């Protein structure tokens, strides 16, 4: 390929055609894999992709033979029968797929698997761009130097390239793992997000607000929520609506039994032990009761969209996430389950984030805020209970039926409240403390 580009009369145009082909081929394959991954992504796919990535790191770092290889070449006659730019574009297209010829490093095999596991078009495009650049740059550089045989004569160059690929892949794997769920604040619960601001509650301490790039400041109340230009908190039954920028109170009211708050441009929602109320943010008074339950059923923390309030209802009969249009009063059950527990939804731009706790896993999931829409998993952790052997000791396995296809290693850490920003999903993890109390930690998960 170095020779073909080097032989072109207009080397720049030839190089550009080759690079464009590479980019297009790589983008087509990797985004297709990402789209497929978004549909079929799961724990197994991720584990396989990570295993392949680790294998590729070891292989390239140690300079092991690259396996498997596809024993094909690009069609040589094209360079003679077509205009050279067109032939180079098509060569680029074939090489860009990464699946049509020999690959110089094992890392090339890890990339499609990672695309599939990530299931993100943005990430796939970034990987495609990196892959195309990795294939184009050596060709262009050597063509400019006129050194077609340099790599063959001095294999140290290829060895260095593979070591760099291993290092880059290792960095990506480690960064991905770190980014999968980063701690925002210990002992922090009930996140609320608006733009780049994040508010949360520290149990026994109070509410905090962290603006972009600044340290968190304590608010003069508990259970803060932010939305539009407002921040709202309460001190006992005294609820304060304040300006988010200056924290200057705009409205104060007394609401007996208030526990949780949500605020938007037009509305204030609050939860008491058994009810959720909504009212215009500029008015006082109890507002309208949106939902009421009888204990032991519980209502989750409300979240507000433009004119929607969403909340969970959990009982022994099932759990559901409901949205109520506060203008029309129309009620929609967005998600429901007789088997799983659906908890603490958040809304942003028509997207719904919530916790789905099932028999075999706990998941933080994101999906369109409409009934029956498909969700995708942003973060997944172990289930809250293990399983027994399925048969009595000393008895046969025949006839046993276990709840999970694999033997789960249960956790006592429970996914809890959520918040959603354009780039990040937030979730609280509750860790059991003494006497049944739980200690929260606020995690941030990158949306993809």
């Amino acid at each position, binding site marked *: 390929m170095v020779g073909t580009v080097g032989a072109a009369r207009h080397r720049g145009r030839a190089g550009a055609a080759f690079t464009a082909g590479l980019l297009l081929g790589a983008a087509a394959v990797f985004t297709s894999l990402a789209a497929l991954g978004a549909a079929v992504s799961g724990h197994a796919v991720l584990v396989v992709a990570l295993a392949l990535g680790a294998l590729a790191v070891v292989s390239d770092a140690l300079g092991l033979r690259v396996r498997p290889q596809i024993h094909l070449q690009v069609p040589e006659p094209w360079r003679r029968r077509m205009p050279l730019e067109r032939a180079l574009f098509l060569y680029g297209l074939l090489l860009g797929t990464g699946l049509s010829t020999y690959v110089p490093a094992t890392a090339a095999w890890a990339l499609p698997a990672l695309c599939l596991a990530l299931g993100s078009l943005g990430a796939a495009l970034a990987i495609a761009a990196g892959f195309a650049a990795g294939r184009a740059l050596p060709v262009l550089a050597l063509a400019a130097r006129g050194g077609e045989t340099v790599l063959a004569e001095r294999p140290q160059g290829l060895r260095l390239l593979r070591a760099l690929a291993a290092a880059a892949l290792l960095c990506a794997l480690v960064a991905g793992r770190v980014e999968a769920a980063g701690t925002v604040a210990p002992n922090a619960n009930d996140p609320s997000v608006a733009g780049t601001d994040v508010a949360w509650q520290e149990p026994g301490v109070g509410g905090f607000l962290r603006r972009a790039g600044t340290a968190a400041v304590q608010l003069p109340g508990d259970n803060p929520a932010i939305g539009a230009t407002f921040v709202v908190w309460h001190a006992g039954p005294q609820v304060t609506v304040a300006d988010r920028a200056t924290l200057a109170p705009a409205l104060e009211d007394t609401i007996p039994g208030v526990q949780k708050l949500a605020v938007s441009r037009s509305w204030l929602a609050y939860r008491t032990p058994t009810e959720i109320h909504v009212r215009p943010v500029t008015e006082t008074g109890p507002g309208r009761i949106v939902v009421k339950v009888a204990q032991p*059923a519980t209502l989750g923390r409300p979240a507000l969209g433009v004119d929607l309030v969403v909340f969970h209802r959990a009982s022994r009969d099932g*759990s559901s996430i409901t949205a109520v249009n506060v203008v029309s009063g129309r009620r929609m059950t967005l998600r429901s389950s007789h088997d*799983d527990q659906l*908890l603490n939804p958040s809304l942003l731009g028509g997207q719904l984030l919530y916790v789905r706790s099932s028999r075999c896993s706990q998941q933080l999931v994101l999906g369109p805020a409409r009934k029956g829409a498909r969700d995708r998993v942003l973060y997944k952790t172990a289930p*809250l209970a293990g399983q027994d052997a399925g048969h009595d000791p*000393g008895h046969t396995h025949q006839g046993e039926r276990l709840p999970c296809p694999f033997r789960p290693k249960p956790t006592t850490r429970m996914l809890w409240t959520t918040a959603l920003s354009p780039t990040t999903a937030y979730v609280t993890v509750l860790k059991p403390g003494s006497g*049944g109390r*739980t*200690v929260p930690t606020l995690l941030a998960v990158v949306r993809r």
Partner: protein
Amino acid sequence: MLSESVAAASSRRGFLARTGRLLVGLAGGGFVLEALRAQKAEAFHFCGHIYTTGSCPHPVGLPRIDAKGFPLRAADGKPVDDLGRAVDRLGRPVNAKGALLRDPDGNPLPPAPRTRVCTRAGREFGFRGQIDGAWYRCCGGHIRKLVDCCGYVGNRINGDAALTGYCYSGRRVFCVMYYDTKIKC
């Protein structure tokens, strides 16, 4: 049953079995005989079960239920919800010591669904599950009630043909559960 007894008593295999037991009894005494009897019960996957029909789907595995058909953890008889967590009588999750789990504000954590095991089997496999009859065996020193989950089904949970068992009105056994009573035996 009578014919089986006669055959067992008169066949060569029956004779060998009896002779074998006698020899073993002479050699090892009652302990070994008891062990041989116990092995007979181990042919099926939990004590008292006398056929190959599989367990009903249960949050923990072994299909132990309470008197009303809700799931219990087989190991200790504690009630569990559909997530497999130990719960109190209102379905709220509790810790290993039985203390109510609370959120950081001190409120009890919300209950998860808790479904009768036979009802859930019916929901999962597309029929209306119900309990018709049961049989009893002695297991672990207590009377165990073995319960059929019945429905208008052609196949049982194993995937092959379902039998009538302790089901009535044309219903057949889809899967099995058990309830451990406190009656000693």
